[in-house]
């Protein structure tokens, strides 16, 4: 009986995890197309892979969503490069794995931009 409960619990966790992975999406609410997007745990420079590689055309247009891979809920710093070659940062971004999207960025969220 105990093992049956455990298996059921594991199945629930597994199915919830799969759902969360599907919903782990970035929503580009800036006015520019983003060509590269990296996440690092907040306060570090341990940048993960370029998430734009998950997109079918390799970039995220304004108002478009991007599927994120291998990201868990937490607080991150985000580094991005836009279509004009400008690199910007967004610090201390809360990323969730529930709901329709994980996080969004507006123009006003971008800091320390440089060409």
């Amino acid at each position: 009986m105990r093992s049956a409960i455990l298996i059921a619990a594991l199945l629930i966790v597994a199915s919830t995890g799969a759902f969360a992975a599907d919903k782990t999406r970035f929503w580009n609410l800036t006015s520019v197309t983003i060509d590269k997007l990296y996440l690092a745990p907040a306060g570090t420079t341990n940048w993960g892979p370029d998430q734009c590689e998950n997109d079918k055309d390799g970039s995220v247009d304004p108002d478009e969503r991007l599927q994120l891979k291998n990201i868990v809920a937490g607080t991150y710093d985000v580094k991005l490069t836009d279509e004009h070659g400008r690199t910007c940062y967004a610090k201390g971004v809360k990323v969730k794995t529930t709901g329709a999207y994980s996080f969004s960025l507006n123009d006003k969220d971008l800091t320390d931009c440089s060409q």
Partner: protein
Amino acid sequence: MSPRRLILLPLVALAVAGLAGAAQAYTAYVSNEKDNTISVVDLDKMQMVKSIPVGERPRGILLSKDKKYLYICNGDADHIEVIDLDTLQSVRTLDSGPDPELFALDRDGNKLYIANEDNAMVTVIDLKDGTTAMQIPVGVEPEGMAVSPDDKILVATSETTSMAHFIDLKTLQVIGSVLVDSRPRFAAFTPDGKYVLVSSEIGGTVAVIDMATRKIVKKIGFAIPGVDKPTIQAVGINITADGKTAFVALGPANRIAVVDLTNFEVKKYLLVGQRVWHADFTPDGKYLVTANGNSNDISIIDVDALKVIKSVPVGQLPWGVVIR
């Protein structure tokens, strides 16, 4: 208070009261894609009077032909939600296929043509029984949808393919495609059906396509002093009932371009709220109301005077608007 101010204040009050009176009894319904609501705005009072919770990511919004119902594309919920406008309650949902973004009704209001952004399809729903009548493959990321005034042709724009597809509404087959500038997002027919105008967000242009030849006869470009070219992103198009003027929403340029359709020249830019995607006329054609995503408001434009007369706060990230 200076005597000049004392004279001016009643004049301004009179102007606002007069405009409010002219828009009397009209109501705007605004889809807010971030907080998943429809804002109901009384255009007489010029204020939001109700917020209706709907499914996730409402964007495209339409009135039924009898103006009794509101249809809403809930992109993240993968359905069309139907709101009864007498009760302001959700009365049914229609299976739309994945990620519905924009849609169009046929002339009689019996069929709904829906752009499915995620699977490159146009879904046709029979509104009598709510069933899916057909799915039509088109280019990648379809969005703009417009039915010709004679009810014979549907134009669907595909953002990634950068094409306007012409679909015969008898056979429901694509009978031709026209390459336009990058990321076409909207299509609108002139009232006489002679032209279809297709906006391109990244290209920042509007292509004027002759329906008889299916050729682009003019590309309308936009230039605003002091505004970076890449932020001029053409999206929503509203054409006056006399077919003489088009109002083009320019997204993060925060402007509406006023285009003279007799010569396809831009005659004015109107400053509105931030990231304006779509707009709608009041039924009398006297006012145009724009949905401004990043400033969370709507702007009300006096069409004859070509002036913005008021902004009204609504929900989060307003995307589309209809007025009855």
